[in-house]
């Protein structure tokens, strides 16, 4: 019984990270309708920066987590100038965007693998885990879970309650027609990218506290986040977190029942089933 609970708990912790990582990509995809293939690399760059910066600067990880999230937010803002957006929005936009984002992913991978040749992580092990009866609850992973929940809630409130959130929702449903009522798409695009990048920075920084990472896993991270974003639907941060949690718990259980090597096979089968079901019920 305790073993079952421990597996579920472990799944919830890793699932919360999956969800947190997918929230930013889902926001970018939902608003701009662009698949940002650099996203996973950004998460991992944040994680790798988190693994090195405390040693280099002597800063506390607690301070570095929001600092990295904010830095990536600014990076997202600066890296998507209006001119680039309007250029990419002209003819064959999805094609151009995919190529450009894939290109940046490769550039980051090359640079990242030179700076961090081996998998790195901050891996804080000093924190004593909590105990609930025989159940062990790791402190750092609980923090990731709480951050995932807080991030999803904050973004949901932002989307539902703020004026910008309304603009994003209008953009999601009406597409380019929002320009007719004077909404600036390029400006919204910049903001969406900044928010998405901010979440990538936050997720990456938290990942480094529990797991060693390598920049070579960037594309896999993007694809996993993309799967979650598509299953959960657009502009639904809490739903994407929920799907991430389910995936984490599912992976944990499948790993225990069928052996860890079969866990991805069954995850893929579940993913395909959900996609087919959503399509048949007209919710593609």
């Amino acid at each position, binding site marked *: 019984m305790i073993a079952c609970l421990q597996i579920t708990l472990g799944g919830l912790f890793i699932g919360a990270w999956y969800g947190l990582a997918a929230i930013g990509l889902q926001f970018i995809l939902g608003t701009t309708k662009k698949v940002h293939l650099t996203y996973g690399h950004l998460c991992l760059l944040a994680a790798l920066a988190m693994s090195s910066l405390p040693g280099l600067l002597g800063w506390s990880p607690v301070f570095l987590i929001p600092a990295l999230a904010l830095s990536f937010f600014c990076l997202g803002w600066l890296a998507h100038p209006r001119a680039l957006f309007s250029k990419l929005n002209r003819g064959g936009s999805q094609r151009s965007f995919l190529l450009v984002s894939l*290109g940046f992913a490769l550039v980051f991978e090359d640079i990242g693998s030179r700076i961090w040749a081996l998998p790195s992580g901050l891996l804080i092990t000093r924190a004593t885990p909590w105990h609930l009866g025989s159940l062990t609850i790791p402190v750092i992973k609980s923090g990731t879970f709480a951050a995932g929940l807080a991030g999803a809630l904050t973004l949901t409130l932002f989307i539902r309650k703020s004026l910008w959130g309304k603009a994003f929702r209008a953009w999601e449903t009406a597409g380019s027609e929002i320009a007719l009522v004077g909404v600036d798409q390029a400006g919204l695009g910049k903001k969406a990218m900044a928010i998405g990048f901010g979440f990538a920075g936050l997720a990456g920084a938290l990942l480094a506290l529990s797991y060693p990472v390598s920049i070579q896993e960037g594309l896999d991270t993007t694809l996993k986040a993309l799967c979650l974003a598509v299953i959960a639907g657009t502009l639904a941060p809490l739903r994407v977190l929920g799907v991430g949690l389910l995936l984490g718990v599912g992976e944990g259980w499948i790993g225990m029942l069928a052996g860890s090597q079969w866990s991805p096979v069954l995850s893929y089968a579940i993913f395909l089933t959900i996609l087919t079901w959503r399509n*048949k019920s007209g919710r593609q």
Partner: protein
Amino acid sequence: MNRSKLQFYLIPGILLILIVVIGRHHSYAGLLLWTFLLQGILALSYDFLGGYGGELHLGHGTFFGIGAYVSALMILAGLPWWLSIVLAGLGGFLAALAISPVLIPLQGGAFSLASLVFLFLFHSLSRNLSRLTGGVDGLSLDRVTGMDIWLPCVALLFFLCFYIHDSLADSKFTRELKAVAEDREAAALCGVSGQKIRTEALLLGSTMAALAGGILPIQSSYISLQSTFGLEVALAPVVIVLIGGPGTRFGALSGALLYVGLQEWIWTGIGEWHLALLGLVFILSGVFLPSGLAGLFKIQTKPAPVDR
């Protein structure tokens, strides 16, 4: 076939034969040619659903991998190499047929992801069924044939794919595919079945890719998860078609030529920072060539005359 059409195929055909002859005597040139022809076949086969069909078919490499494994297993079972290639094509066709009920109804992002998930699924299956597929160690074969066999073989397949791709470029088939890609419901109102035409495109492209995969174990005498179901293998045709220009007569070919040439130049000439440079090429191509190389040279498929 009219005279100009004949010349259109004859000249590249003769050139190809000449190159193959040269390639057989220069192993480096032969290997370079092999890479170009293989990428060309994959890009041409991708272009049906990925170009004319308007889908981002990220899992196209699945069928290449299936073909490679079927062919290797058949050779290990003692079958002649040529029959193994044929069976590889058949394996790819059957796999596409089995997958199509799930994949074809999906569109856009859902299609791309589902096709990618199929790639991962087959990758995982090949890794886990290690008794059959060799798992992470891959499958090693005794030397099957030399360059004098596999190079003409891949050249022949390339020419066949080029011929099929070109002869379908202005056909009713591609017009219907384009119509379905643009507006499925409007196409259905005009009597075009999206399900049927997209299934046909998937089957055609998958069989071609599987045939190409069937030649891989003959060329390298070894296949691994990375060389068959690897993400780099699967993404190459997508990138090539994006660079060249999707759904155009020469887009896939010009993209393959640029991609292979650049990769080779970067690997041999520059060495360091090869991945970053390749990335830079993608970025520049995305920003400055929004319609691909085909768009740069205004190479478009001519509109077909209206049937009366």
